[in-house]
């Protein structure tokens, strides 16, 4: 059925087909605001071990206990047997800003599949929006290890 304009509202056919978030002002003009920029998450394995990245994501601001009490976020590992990073591997994935208000990493595990050595990092990182990052940000978790001194760690940065 054909839609008819009402009042002084002007809506072009082309605009009606465009998927944008918008509101109508009191004057009747349509004010479009683009959707918030997505957040990019990059996981960087600088170690010689396979790393269980142990990433957690929530669409609400939650504390560490709630975040790490949930399931590990595995969507980035689709097609892989396990949500792990190979030695030297980097992985990047993008989430809509609404999907990510809290992100964290807890106690990643570094393992050698041949010698069955390695260790678990004690590190826990929790980042929340907007305190620690904003829409459009790139969040980087970098995993590194020095087994000679029993050091297994993850650090975060926001670009």
């Amino acid at each position, binding site marked *: 059925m054909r839609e008819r304009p009402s009042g002084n509202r002007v809506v072009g056919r082309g605009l009606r087909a465009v998927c944008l978030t918008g509101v109508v002002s009191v004057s009747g003009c349509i004010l479009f605001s683009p959707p918030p920029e997505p957040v990019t998450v990059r996981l960087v394995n600088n170690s010689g071990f396979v790393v269980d990245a142990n990433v957690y994501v929530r669409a609400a601001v939650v504390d560490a206990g709630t975040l790490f009490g949930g399931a590990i976020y595995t969507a980035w590992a689709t097609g892989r047997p*396990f949500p792990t990073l190979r030695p030297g591997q980097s992985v990047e994935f993008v989430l*809509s800003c609404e999907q990510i208000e809290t992100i964290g990493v807890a106690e990643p595990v570094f393992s050698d599949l041949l010698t069955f050595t390695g260790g678990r990092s004690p590190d826990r990182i929790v980042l929340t929006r907007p305190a620690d990052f904003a829409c459009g940000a790139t969040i980087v978790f970098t995993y590194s290890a020095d087994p000679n001194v029993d050091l297994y760690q993850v650090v975060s940065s926001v670009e």
Partner: protein
Amino acid sequence: MAVWCAAMIPLGGCIFAFRDFDDDGSDGEPNSGKILVRMINASLSFGVDPELYATGQAVTNLNTDLFVDANKKGGFGDYGTGLLDPGQDAQIEIDCGAARVVGTRGGRFLKRSTGEVVATGQQRVVSQELQFDCGDVITITYEGKGPNEATTAIAVSRP
């Protein structure tokens, strides 16, 4: 990431719908399917406790991460005892997500009349993504020729 305009709403906006994922941020298991583990008691004189273990977790220490009671597989063999009679074989399926590392301590070769351990085989352990993949068949062969003379071999094949 799949993003589409699910429904236009009044005032020119729309609802964005994203790929489903659970409230806890996960979107399902990345690893489905099974592996098959075949255990063959090639000894004609001794029974065998195959000492089969599997875990879906990272292994950084075989004794604490793999070879623990919670990971030991049983329920096969005569009357589900988990023991193989001389010349007997058995097989079990294990979910790939629970078989990141599969191995045997070596197997215990038992005197049939008394249950006395007369020999032990050699420890064999394999890792998914390194020595086998989901869907593969792992065959462990136990051969005991006499007291303190036993060998354990492990092989991987793709059906």
